[in-house]
């Protein structure tokens, strides 16, 4: 089976500083990778490389179509949450997955609330629901736990488990420990 993400000898330099060199990794369906490391070690850059938003200085990256959850919310702030999420679901042709994703993150009661009124934890849940509704096989999560409360962390864990069970893979960059069975990559050593 084809891996969902593969880095071959990838080198990345940002602002004249080499963040990592000769990085190899392969992510098969069902696998999950926890990218750890101190601040500034290149966790976010690795996620953006995997998403195709940055170019590596050297090396090859192959990927399946990914879904990304990062610091940027990427939802129209003036719209109700349901419609803002619906825009991306319609764009990706996965409107049927939207309701399930909103319920999985516990946002059903907030569907009519404008995005600009959401708290940071609710915004993070919304961002994760956008990823869950995308139908992408490869999920890229940058600091997915930021702002989440206990219930949110549990819901994320359930979402991750069902995504892996259905043959998806994910990369999560986080300085906090993640619950469950994750392969680990430590940057900045």
């Amino acid at each position: 089976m084809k891996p969902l993400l593969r880095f071959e000898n990838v080198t990345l330099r940002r602002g004249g500083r080499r963040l990592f060199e000769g990085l190899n990794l392969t992510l098969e369906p069902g696998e999950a990778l926890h990218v750890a490391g101190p601040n500034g070690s290149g966790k976010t850059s690795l996620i953006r490389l995997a998403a195709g938003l940055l170019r590596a200085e050297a090396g090859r990256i192959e990927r399946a179509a990914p879904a990304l959850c990062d610091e940027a919310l990427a939802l129209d702030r003036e719209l109700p949450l349901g419609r803002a999420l619906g825009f991306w679901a319609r764009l990706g042709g996965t409107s049927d997955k939207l309701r399930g994703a909103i319920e999985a993150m516990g946002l059903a009661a907030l569907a009519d609330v404008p995005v600009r009124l959401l708290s940071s934890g609710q915004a993070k849940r919304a961002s994760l629901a956008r990823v869950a509704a995308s139908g992408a096989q490869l999920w890229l999560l940058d600091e997915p736990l930021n702002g989440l409360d206990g219930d949110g962390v549990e819901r994320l864990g359930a979402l991750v488990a069902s995504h892996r069970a259905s043959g998806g893979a994910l990369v999560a960059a986080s300085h906090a420990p993640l619950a469950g069975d994750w392969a680990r990559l430590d940057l900045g050593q």
Partner: protein
Amino acid sequence: MIGMLIARDVRRAIGGAAWLPVGFFLLVATLVPFAVGPDARLLERIGGGALWIAALTAALLPIERLVEPDRADGILDQLALHGLAEESVALAKIAAHWLTFGPLLLIAAVPGSVLLGLGEDVLRSSLAALAVGTPGLAALAVAVAALTAGLPRAGALAGMLLLPLAVPLLIFGAAASSGGGSGALLLEAAVSLAITAGAPFVAGAAIRAGRT
């Protein structure tokens, strides 16, 4: 997909500040008689050009909301992840920006020409010139917005970039407005077309280069 993007941008513009450039356009047109005096013949002679200067300054106003909010909010990144080329996104933005800028400006040109005391002939040729020129202005605005997105003092920088690049449009547009004949209108159309055709590539490359 592009249709959805255009619909989104049009909705945001109408819900936001689409009327602002039009109000500004009328304001600048009002200032001209105050500045040069109420001499009807003089106003008639410079009126076509004055309308164009008003249109150019009005085109500057929306630049900061065209690309930067979507860049800062990660929308442009998500669109790339959905497999949309940056050039397609830029094209959608140009189309949406023209839809919320061009027709409104044409409507505002009617009261604007009254403020300047322009005759019916000049109004008619000005409307034709603005109709031909506004797609170029909209495309230029999106390209400049993409080039300056994320920079400090982007608004002032955008003005420094857009106004010189709009000079060819201004020359032929103002000439066509003031009865320069169909030659001026054709040259204006050529300039407008060239800008509209090139702008999506400039804006697309700028969006890509602006990623960090």
